[in-house]
């Protein structure tokens, strides 16, 4: 497998009973990138991440993490935040972070030293039992534990879920900082805005398969831009010139940009005296692209 690739999966398949949760996933996460796995609920994101990390074994396919075919061989260089957050409630944040580092091979004393510094930096208490912390604080403690051993690859499963806007912003800043330090970040989400702001590359998974891989821009350009048009009069003979998919919403006509461009349509509308007030051509958002990709796959994007 290529040395410039931090994580590679080839044809990963996982079945639970008779149900195939993942049906042949291929992906390549470039070293040092922020890479997003997008998909609706139940698409197979968590199962894919668990297979990549060696928590469960695939029924078919191969995986390679930081050059190791056996994921646990790379454990010292990997940090993982599971979707289901879990910490020992009786532990203090300092001990919890040091313990998570120790699991990845960081000596406890060094882990405690780094934990103290990290907690102070984020204004978190060191010696209060975790059960007394708020959910957001506990989540931040676990995230710090994921990073305490300075991993080369950080895998985050739905890292933003359950966080308020302030903590989401903090987390985005943390992810950017780790990426700036050279770490590869792989995270899953079904909230498109985070992926749009953070990711250099994304894959969209639906029904256990990769439906798109590339940059957010590439995802958007797969689909035509939208035209938003308002006129002096809502109706008239000029309406026949509009494309068949045009729909009136709140007094504004919306439709896909025609394949031959906007100019022929504009000329026809002007000739028909449509009385154009505003015209906007909007490229599709990643959200639009995501919804379209998932719909193409036959999944409900909810």
């Amino acid at each position, binding site marked *: 497998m290529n040395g410039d690739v931090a994580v590679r999966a080839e044809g990963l398949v*996982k*079945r*639970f*009973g008779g149900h195939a949760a993942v049906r042949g996933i291929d992906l390549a996460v470039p070293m040092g990138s922020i890479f997003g796995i997008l998909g609706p609920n139940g698409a197979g994101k968590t199962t894919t991440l*668990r297979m990549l*990390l*060696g*928590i*469960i*074994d695939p*029924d078919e396919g191969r*995986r390679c993490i930081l050059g190791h*075919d*056996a*994921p*646990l061989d790379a*454990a010292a260089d*990997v940090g*993982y935040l*599971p979707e*289901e*957050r*879990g*910490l*020992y*409630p*009786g*532990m203090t944040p300092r001990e919890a972070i040091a*313990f*998570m580092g*120790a*699991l*990845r*091979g960081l000596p406890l004393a060094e882990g405690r030293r780094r934990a103290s510094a990290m907690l102070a930096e984020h204004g978190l208490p060191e010696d209060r039992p975790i059960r007394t912390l708020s959910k957001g604080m506990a989540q931040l403690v676990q995230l710090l534990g994921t990073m305490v051993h300075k991993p080369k690859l950080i895998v985050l499963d739905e890292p933003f879920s359950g966080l308020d806007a302030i903590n989401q912003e903090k987390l985005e800043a943390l992810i950017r900082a780790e990426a700036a330090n050279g770490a590869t970040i792989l995270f899953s989400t079904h909230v498109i805005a985070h992926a749009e702001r953070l990711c250099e590359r994304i894959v969209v998974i639906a029904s256990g398969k990769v439906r798109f891989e590339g940059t957010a821009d590439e995802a958007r350009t797969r689909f035509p831009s939208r035209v938003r048009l308002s006129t002096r009069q809502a109706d008239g003979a000029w309406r026949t010139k509009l494309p068949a998919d045009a729909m009136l919403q709140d007094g504004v006509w919306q439709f896909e940009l025609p394949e031959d461009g906007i100019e022929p349509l504009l000329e026809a509308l002007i000739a028909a005296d449509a009385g154009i007030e505003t015209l906007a051509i909007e490229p599709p958002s990643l959200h639009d692209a995501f919804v379209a990709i998932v719909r193409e796959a036959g999944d409900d994007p909810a």
Partner: protein
Amino acid sequence: MTRLFRSAMVIARRDYVATVWSKTFLIFLLAPVLPLLLAGLMSVFSGGGNKDRHRANDGIALMTDARTATALTGARKRLAERLGPVIPPLTPTHVPAYGQPRLSGTLDEPRLEASRDALDDLAGPIALIVDEARLDRAVGHRPPAVRLQTISTAAPSTVPDHEDVARGGQTALFFLTILLAGMMISNMAEEKSNKVIELLAAAVPIDAIFFGKLLAILGASLTGVVAWASMGLVAALTLLSPGSIVPPAVGWPIFVLLGLVYFITVFLLWGAIYLGIGAQAGSAREAQTLSMPLTLGEAVAFLLASAQVTHPGNTIGLVAAVIPWSSPFAMIGRAATSAALWPHLLAILWQLLIILLTIRVGSALFRTNILKSGPASATSGKWRIFGRKRRD
């Protein structure tokens, strides 16, 4: 292997500290104190009775006329020469101490006053003294002194006494493992409810999680054993007189050492199964239900091992020593009744072999179900028990 051991130690250390520094463990540790406390209280109360008797033995206030007093003290002296301290001293006095038993009246109508306990003890000896005095008055006859000599009534073998030690050792092992099994299973259920298990599974091999947890509970239990043994030693030194327990056939030092080894083996043999089963449970209640058949199985092994004590040479005794899950119980019993050491070496090697296999099976069960990783792993895991399974 180094990584497996290092990872197991990280988990064992966390679990050990969390277990030992908990209120539950303190209660667990103090559990044997309650019976000791009860024994102490009983000793204090029975000590009160002894004090009363002691007062009786100090002497009986003899409050009779001078001639009767002379006859009684003379009779008492003759009897004491033959029967020893069971004959209480008589002290002629007009002013008895408070609570002191009193003998008054005449030889024909003697009167004894004392507390109820003292009366029970003194009635017989005083009757003897009065009879001796009456006989002396009537015929001046002294019964011929019977020459006394003791003979040994003990059986040539001390097996019954050794049996007590054997049964004590077996019972201690049995109850310890039962107590710890509960701790093990609830620990596993708690781990699942904390949702930490995925975090662990992503960082270290599942075998290391399994082995770490086993080591942690073993460490915690050895801490308990050391504490209890210290308390037991203090209690034994306080409550038992020297020589009241016959030493085991192999001697106390080797018996204690073997007890420790068999405790570790029985713990690993049963603990690995309990932990594997605990991983199947989703809640503490489920864990309790799942542990019931195992507890019954352990009780059967214990009963089977009891046969080793009463019938060390027969088939049941041999079977109990050979079946790995009853072998530690049977062999600790054997250590008390037989001095031969080579069977222990064989048994320990045999038990270690089965421990390795049990840990593999327990670990496979644990791995299959701890993250509900699906039936594919379950079927393949069956065959991977006997070989190294690569997680790639």
